[in-house]
C-alpha cells in the first residue's frame, strides 16, 4: 500500500499508521496525543478509504471533506493526502496567570476578534516561536472579556511552565473544537457533570451556561481531585449552587478527613453510582482522565443513557514521541 503526501509517494509498512509512515519518510506532520483525540495531526484525504476510527469525534462537515487523524489511520488501500487548514487560527495574548490551587493555574487570554465558541469547547494553544502545542478547554463563556483556561502545573511541563512565566506573550489559538458544551432548548433535562483534575474547566463553563440559560432541571456536578492541592474552584462552585435547589456539587478527594459538606474521600465512580439522577433521561458531560471518561461512558450507556447524550472529553496527555513537546 502507498500513501501519497502532497505528491510524494511513500510505502506503508504492515500495521503502520499513516502518521508513522509519513514520519518514517521524513515528512513533517505536527502531532501531540497520537491517540485520535487532540486533532493536532489532522490531514485531508483526496482519495482512498478512511477507516471510521480515524474520523471519530470529528464534526460531520469535516468527515464529508475527508479530514481525518493520521495517528490512528491504518488504511486498507492506497491514500492520497494533503495538509489542511481546516482549523481556524487566531492570534491572542496572555493577559494574566493566577494560581487557583498549588497545582492549577488560571490563564486568561485576550479574546480574538471573530473567535466564535461555546463554553466547554477546546482550543489548541500554540507557542509561536517553536510550534509547541497543547489542548485546553475553554472555561469562560462567549461575551466575557477574557478567554479563560485552567492549566495543571506539571513540574516538567514545557507548556505549563512557559505559560506561568509569560504574561504578555503572544500565542496562537486554533479552534474551537469539540462538542462539550451546553445544549440549548431542553431546560428541564437532568445534567450530570463529572470530571477529574482540570476536567473541571469545561464543566465550569457548561454549568454557568446552563444557569445563564435558566436551566430548571437538576444539575449534579462531581469533581475528583487526585490530592487535596488539586482541588480548585470549590468556593466558586459553592457560590453558584447556593440558593439553587436544583444544583448540587460534590468533590472526591482521597486522603484527609473531610468535614466540609460535599467533599469526601469516596472515589468518583462510587459517588456517581450513589446519585439519584434519572440516568435514562439525563445528559452527561465527562471530562479528564481518559480511563475514567471511557469507563463512565460505558456504564452510563448500560444504565440506559443514549450515546448521543454523553459528551465525552478525554484529556489525553502528549505522547512521548509527539512532535510538539
Amino acid at each position, binding site marked *: 500500500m502507498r500513501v501519497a503526501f502532497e505528491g510524494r509517494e511513500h510505502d506503508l509498512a504492515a500495521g503502520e499508521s499513516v502518521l508513522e509512515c509519513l514520519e518514517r519518510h521524513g515528512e513533517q506532520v505536527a502531532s501531540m496525543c497520537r491517540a485520535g483525540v487532540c486533532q493536532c495531526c489532522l490531514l485531508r484525504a483526496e482519495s482512498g478509504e478512511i477507516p*471510521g*476510527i480515524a474520523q*471519530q469525534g470529528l464534526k460531520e462537515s469535516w468527515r464529508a471533506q475527508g479530514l481525518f487523524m493520521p495517528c490512528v489511520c491504518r488504511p486498507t488501500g492506497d491514500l492520497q493526502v494533503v495538509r489542511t487548514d481546516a482549523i481556524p487560527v487566531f492570534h491572542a495574548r496572555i493577559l494574566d496567570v493566577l494560581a487557583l490551587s498549588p497545582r492549577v493555574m488560571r490563564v486568561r487570554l485576550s479574546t480574538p476578534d471573530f473567535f466564535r465558541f461555546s463554553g466547554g469547547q477546546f482550543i489548541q494553544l500554540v507557542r509561536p516561536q517553536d510550534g509547541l502545542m497543547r489542548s485546553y478547554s475553554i472555561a469562560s463563556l462567549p461575551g466575557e472579556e477574557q478567554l479563560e483556561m485552567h492549566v495543571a502545573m506539571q513540574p516538567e511541563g514545557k507548556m505549563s511552565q512557559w505559560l506561568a512565566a509569560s504574561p504578555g506573550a503572544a500565542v496562537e489559538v486554533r479552534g474551537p473544537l469539540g462538542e462539550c458544551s451546553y445544549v440549548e432548548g431542553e431546560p428541564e433535562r437532568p445534567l450530570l457533570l463529572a470530571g477529574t483534575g482540570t476536567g473541571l474547566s469545561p464543566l465550569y463553563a457548561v454549568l454557568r451556561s446552563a444557569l445563564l440559560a435558566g436551566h430548571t432541571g437538576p444539575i449534579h456536578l462531581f469533581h475528583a481531585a487526585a490530592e487535596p492541592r488539586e482541588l480548585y474552584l470549590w468556593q466558586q462552585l459553592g457560590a453558584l449552587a447556593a440558593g439553587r435547589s436544583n444544583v448540587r456539587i460534590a468533590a472526591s478527594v482521597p486522603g484527609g478527613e473531610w468535614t466540609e459538606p460535599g467533599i469526601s474521600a469516596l472515589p468518583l465512580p462510587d459517588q456517581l453510582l450513589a446519585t439519584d439522577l434519572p440516568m435514562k433521561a439525563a445528559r452527561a458531560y465527562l471530562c479528564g482522565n481518559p480511563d475514567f471518561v*471511557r469507563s463512565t461512558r*460505558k456504564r452510563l*450507556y*448500560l444504565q440506559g443513557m443514549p*450515546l448521543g447524550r454523553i459528551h465525552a472529553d478525554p484529556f489525553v496527555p502528549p505522547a512521548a514521541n509527539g512532535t510538539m513537546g
Partner: protein
Amino acid sequence: MPQANLFERIGGAAAVDAAVDIFYRKVLTDDRISHFFDTVDMERQRTKQKAFLTMAFGGAGSYSGKDMRAGHAHLKLTEEHFDAVMENLGATLQELQVPGELIAEAAAIAASVKNDVLNR
C-alpha cells in the same frame, strides 16, 4: 395477496432503531463476547450493530459473504461466540414483543452467515 417481506413486517428502520441499543447493551454485558464489542469508539460499534440487525431483519444490508469473512477472520470466533450473539438477538426481539414466527425468520437469516463468520 402478496406477503410483505420480513423487513416490512418486523417494522422496518424504526424496528432497527428500537432494537439497536437493547442489543448492543446485551452484548456489552455478555461475558462470553463483551470483549469483542468493548471499544473506545462506541458510536462506530453501535453503527455496526445497526448494520447487523438490518441484515438479520431482511433489510437491504450491505453485507456480503466476503465482507463477513474479512470482517471476522482476525477474531478467531468459535461456535460459542456465535451462539451468544444469536441468543442476544432472540432476547432483544422478545423484549420488543416481536411475534415468534418473525423472530424465527430473523434468526434463520442471521444463522445463514455462520460459516462466513466462523471462517469455515
